[in-house]
């Protein structure tokens, strides 16, 4: 990698990090290439807190944050935002909930004010809550018709049986119907707060100015007795392959997901698994899986694999969209590719190709403000170190064929797979 490349990678020399007295961590990096700015971050109020009977609560709360605050109505909030061509949105995850916004740099103070108000002083007006409920329920009706969403839901139910990860964050129609306005207010009061919150600001603003603005907007937020997230129970390993089909009548195509549990982001196996996954179902036109299922057999428009690794155990899954009559055939081809992947190590050429791919595409992933913001969030969430992206090339190149084979064998057992399908 040339010096020129290195200078473009974020590192301790140009990332500024500060922890405010109330516990909020701020990271910023300037980028004056375009007159715009991105603000994103997360806080500890994810779906892990949802009771089973009111699943979808964290999602409902985050969706409702901008429906009215002590200072502004829903229409006023969005009028301010949209009038300046800015955007701001909240979303919930299992462990954390997050936000993402952007504006012209000149409008950063307003964007931060709206963010702070939505986080600190939402009022959850009843009429707005009911409007939102109808939208969420329609979303669930649409999900019920989506072969990809439903296959994914069934897959999580099999793989993470009896574990909070088996639950869809957006809940079920019956649980969303059960959530009352009081539940939203209570959830916000108990779980929202500055402790554990991280905010990144990237774009055409100087670091000290960005931090000053964040302090002004969010530095005064104090919450007494902000509750801790519940402990994650251990995951029960699968004893045998479990297959389940979810029927949706009238569809032309079925979605198929085959997979297993993957490493956590912090595990040393993470990078070997990422490179292995790239070979298995990403590299070129979707790796070995794409080659066998799409290119050779012509069975699918899309076929590939993905690894999702977070704070807890992730999933390692192969997915494909296929004609309903080809589900069995595609499934067999995928399982035989997984067998090959655990039986024999990847070739030296395959590994080298994927390593080059990871190193080469890094500048591209860090090109926009949003790309850099994601990188800073990763650094903070997984404690990777401010110099992570500067060390990245070495981390990638240190992985050997044997490392890949070891993680493949540790995580993938073709006798213990979760196989989910949705379609007619």
């Amino acid at each position, binding site marked *: 990698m040339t010096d020129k490349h290195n200078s473009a990678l974020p590192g301790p020399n140009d990332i500024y990090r500060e922890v405010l007295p109330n516990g909020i961590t701020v990271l910023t990096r300037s980028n004056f290439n375009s007159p715009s700015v991105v603000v994103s971050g997360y806080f500890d109020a994810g779906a892990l807190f949802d009771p089973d009977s009111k699943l979808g609560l964290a999602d409902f709360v985050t969706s409702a944050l901008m429906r009215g605050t002590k200072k502004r109505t829903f229409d006023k909030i969005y009028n301010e935002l949209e009038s300046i*061509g*800015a955007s701001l949105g909240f979303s919930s995850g299992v462990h954390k909930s997050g936000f993402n916004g952007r504006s012209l740099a000149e409008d950063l103070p307003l964007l931060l004010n709206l963010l702070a108000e939505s986080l600190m002083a939402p009022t959850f007006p009843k009429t707005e809550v009911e409007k939102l409920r109808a939208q969420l329920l329609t979303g669930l009706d649409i999900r019920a018709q989506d072969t990809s969403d439903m296959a994914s839901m069934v897959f999580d139910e099999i793989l993470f049986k009896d574990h909070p990860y088996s639950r869809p964050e957006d809940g079920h129609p019956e649980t969303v119907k059960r959530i009352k306005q009081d539940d939203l207010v209570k959830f916000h009061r108990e779980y929202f707060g500055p402790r554990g919150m991280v905010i990144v600001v990237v774009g055409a603003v100087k670091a000290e100015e960005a931090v000053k603005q964040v302090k002004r907007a969010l530095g005064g937020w104090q919450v007494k007795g902000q509750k801790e997230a519940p402990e994650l129970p251990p995951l029960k390993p699968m004893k045998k392959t479990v297959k389940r089909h979810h029927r949706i009548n009238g569809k032309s195509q079925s979605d198929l997901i085959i997979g297993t549990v993957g490493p956590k982001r912090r595990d040393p196996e993470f990078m070997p698994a990422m490179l292995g996954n790239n070979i298995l179902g990403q590299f070129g036109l979707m790796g070995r899986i794409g080659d066998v299922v799409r290119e050779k*057999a012509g069975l699918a428009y899309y076929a590939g694999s993905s690894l999702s690794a977070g704070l807890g155990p992730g999933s390692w899954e192969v997915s494909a969209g296929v004609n309903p009559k080809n589900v069995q055939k595609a499934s067999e081809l995928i399982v035989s590719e997984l067998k090959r992947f655990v039986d024999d190590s990847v070739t030296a050429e395959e590994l080298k*190709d994927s390593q080059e791919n990871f190193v080469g595409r890094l500048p591209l992933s860090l*090109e926009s403000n949003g790309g850099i913001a994601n990188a800073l969030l990763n650094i903070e969430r997984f404690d990777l170190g401010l110099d992570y992206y500067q060390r990245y090339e070495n981390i990638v190149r240190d992985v050997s064929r044997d490392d890949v084979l070891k993680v493949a064998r540790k995580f993938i057992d073709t006798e213990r797979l979760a196989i989910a399908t949705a379609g007619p």
Partner: protein
Amino acid sequence: MTNSHTEVTLSNGLKVLLKEIHTAPIISSWVWYRVGSRDEVQGRTGISHWVEHMQFKGTPQFPANVLDKAISREGGVWNAMTYLDWTAYYETMPADKIDLGLRLESDRMVNSQFKPEEVASERTVIISEREGSENEPLFMLGEAVQQTAFRVHPYHHEVIGDMADLRTMTRDDLYNHYREFYVPNNAVMAVAGDFEMDKMLARIRELFEPIPVGKEPARVAREELPQNGEVRLSVEGPGATSYVQVCYRFPAASHPDFYPLTVLDSLLAGPSNLNMFSGGISNKTSRLYRALVDKELAVSVHGGAQATVDPFLYGITMTIHPKRKPEEVIAALDREIQRVQEEKASKEEIARAIKQARALFAYGSENITNQAFWMGYAEMFANYEWFQTYLDKLAKVTAKDIQRVANEYFKPQSRVVGTYVPLDGRVK
């Protein structure tokens, strides 16, 4: 995004646009062909898109599988897309690796093989792509509306093509289409990023200028006649949710009315984002959101125009509230359309639309791929000046212009109204 650029037309007719941007060690290179579903006849619908797929199946110099690995190995991303009027291919790569992308594009402009066995396996892939789309209620509705809006113009079919044609088109059909349209005089090349202008241009000349000029491709598009009366249609399918799509006829992107219509779109449904590599903004204070979603007639509303060579459509898509009927939503929509026809928009509303467009422009300029995209894209339906002067032209739009175009283009007798009727468990 208005850095200076250079335009050169090579001796074989290939137009080249170059823009140096030194913000990141990245180059994005695009080749655009003036061929899309607009150039297709019945029996061969979807052929342009299928040809695009075949362009990834190899040449003698870059056989399939070598091609994709080579790009990925160098840390590049590449893809292609086929649309109504054009087909585009791009590679965005580390700056010192772009030569591979340039060599690949010059090679596959002429040397793709279209081997029969590759055509056969791609046939099922494309059929599978169409089946995936058919799973979506909005695809089924959109296809029905589009084919109703156009009787003689080839915009009447979806880019993916009709299933009947996907089953029967032959290898020779595909190859002939490729040979006819993939000629340098029917293409535009756009490169942006971290390079030196003279060196880049010399390399492009070296690789592309030897490709001989081709016969000017024949165009099959015929002008659509005016529509004399509203058409309503319905599509039935699985699900519990109703959708309505209302389409009005819009002018070509090069028409001066495109600008006031763009501002009107922003007022009605929120600003449409024309960037391909950067997201848009919400529309919760647009007139239609306030009238339809806030009033709980619909749960979402989106509007948008496309920049096209020939007049196409402006579509408003509404997801109907579970307790409401499509007719109630259409009636409320009509009241809002009538309002823009009868009352002038305020200065503030217009200023707001301009600011929104300016912000979307800034977001788009964060990204080199998007900047190269715009140089070629604008050439497909107008020219790069269209893009460079876009914000200025929007800024000149007046309330009077908006009212005039609202009356001229949003006529009930020249619209198509499509409703998706969910069967909700009933068997079709």
